[in-house]
């Protein structure tokens, strides 16, 4: 038998697991803590109504964070998602007279198309993801406004109640957007854990050249993650339009940064190669919860935080969580 496991000997496996659990569940613990805090402090916070409100709004952030998670896992970034949400919501509204299927597929395809453009530019022209998606951030916003003919909202065909149900309806007493998000995360979770696509995305983020030499089709997988991110943003656009009864060409400003923050808070490194779909969900929900809690705190009437203070608090909170994450993550990295 070979006595080879030198580094492993250095690392105490129990400690490794503990730290990785901490970094994985630390955010979850924070989330739960905040929920308990809210439940104790605010009346109406734990109501079914607030829960449903929270999910309806944050499902969109959840979806784009999920796509962003896959992109970041390969070591890339997608700044275009916010604009794509807006563009797809307009597409969904424009297609709403042709039935719910056409509207949903059309909007998701439109998002996927932007993702495809991102992916092609990144893999074929070798332009860095940050720049590529910065350009499509502008371009998709322009398309959204063009398609909406500069109107602030493009109304959904009132006859298409199936489409509005996707945003406003309930399914088994759960808000439909929340259900869609959970399903997407379940599929995403399985895909990242057990599908070749997910594993290969992880491998590419961990070593692009090595992956290529081991026979992975790196270009296609990268293309895939951008298309996925675009399509999920498209789906978020459908929910947006359905929820508001109108396509929203000016919506989604800065959402890409929220999505990135959600992914990072969830413990996924921007350098790629590691990441977890579930932590991303927790991260995205945690950031959403801050808004919800701040609204309730203002309602208490003890302090009235201006929206300006809220920005400061959100920035500070992001810093706090990310620092905690990286502390835990780094110790883990040292051993691993």
């Amino acid at each position, binding site marked *: 038998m070979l006595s080879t496991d030198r580094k492993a000997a250095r690392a105490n496996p129990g400690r490794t697991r503990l730290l990785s659990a901490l970094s994985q569940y630390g955010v979850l613990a924070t989330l739960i803590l905040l929920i308990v805090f809210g439940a104790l402090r605010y009346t109406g916070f734990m109501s079914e109504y607030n829960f449903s409100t929270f999910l309806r709004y944050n499902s969109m952030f959840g979806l784009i964070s999920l796509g962003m998670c896959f992109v970041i896992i390969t070591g890339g*970034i997608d700044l275009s998602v916010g604009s794509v949400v807006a563009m797809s919501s307009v597409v969904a509204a424009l297609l709403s007279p042709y039935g719910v299927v056409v509207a949903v597929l059309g909007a998701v395809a439109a998002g996927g198309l932007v993702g495809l453009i991102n992916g092609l*530019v990144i893999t074929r*022209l*070798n*332009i*860095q993801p*940050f*720049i*590529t998606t*910065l*350009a*499509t*951030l*502008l*371009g998709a*916003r*322009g*398309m*959204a*406004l*063009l398609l909406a003919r*500069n109107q602030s909202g493009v109304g959904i065909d009132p006859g298409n109640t199936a489409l509005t149900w996707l945003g406003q309806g309930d399914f088994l007493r759960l808000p439909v957007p929340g259900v869609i998000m959970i399903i997407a995360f379940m599929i995403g979770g399985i895909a990242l854990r057990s599908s070749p696509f997910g594993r290969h995305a992880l491998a590419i983020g961990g070593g692009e050249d090595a992956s290529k030499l081991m026979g992975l089709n790196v270009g296609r997988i990268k293309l895939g993650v951008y298309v996925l991110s675009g399509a999920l943003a498209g789906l978020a656009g459908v929910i947006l339009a359905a929820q508001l009864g109108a396509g929203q060409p000016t919506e989604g400003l800065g959402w890409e*940064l929220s999505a*990135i*923050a959600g992914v*990072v808070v969830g413990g996924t*490194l*921007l*350098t790629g190669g590691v990441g977890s779909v579930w932590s991303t969900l927790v991260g995205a929900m945690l950031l959403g919860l801050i808004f919800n809690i701040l609204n309730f705190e203002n309602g208490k009437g003890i302090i009235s935080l*201006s*929206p*300006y*203070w*809220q*920005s*400061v*608090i*959100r*920035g*500070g909170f*992001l*810093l706090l969580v*990310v*620092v905690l994450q*990286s502390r835990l993550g*780094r110790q883990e990295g040292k051993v691993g």
Partner: protein
Amino acid sequence: MQTLNVNLTQVATIIIVAMGMTLVIATGGVDLSVGSLMAISGVLAPLIFLNPAFANLQWLGILLAFILPVLVAGAFGLLNGLFVTRLKLQPIVATLVLYIAGRGIAQVITNGQLQSFSTPAFTYIGLGRPFGIPFQVILMLIIVAVTYWVVKRTVFGRSVLAVGGNETAAGLSGIPVSKVKLWVYAISGLLSGVAGLIVIAINSSSDANQVGQNMELDAIAAVAVGGTLLSGGKAQVLGTLFGALIIQLIRFTLLAKGVPDAAALVVKAAIIVVAVALQQRRRRE
């Protein structure tokens, strides 16, 4: 000539900020907080020179209004640098914090209120025209020249490139990597502070909500179109200058030709991609 002046005045602040951004990107980082830091500097200046304490000492108030806000913005830039070097946050995330919180801070300072003023001694940096050339353009040219010289001729400039090109190698060669990084973020902050002052001076008003909006995108686009890779190790100072000018010319042309805003965005997107692709092709040859 008028057209030239218009274009140069409009692009001056972008170029000033893009100089700092070029250095940050040369170290392999990025600074998303520039717009917010502009806002902070922009709201502080009028608070100083409009302060009744300086009613009898207006020159002092104005002098301080030029210096303190820039230093504060530089200090926030330094904070970015500390996030990156001490807390080991990735630059995008590290500067995202102040991107979000920075504008909030500026808004909190004034409670979002717009401050209007007419203080010729101060607005000179935005409206003055020595020898018929807008003052801000002169300032911009000086800053570009200094940045160019710093990159080409100084130890600091070489260190920036070395850190961006191979951080480990730079560290093993005795280059104080953390210090270099701290400084580039601080410089980026300082230059953002300067740009913030110019913006409020041109408008004779300071609006925490508006000063520096979207500046990070403009500056990064200018750097990228100018041929500096986002992966670091290169700093094309003149490239950034031309990158910003190209973007400005496109914007001017589209506006002047009456292309609607929405379509202009799509064109701008295409041009960024094409410009960067051409830059890379040229590099490969």
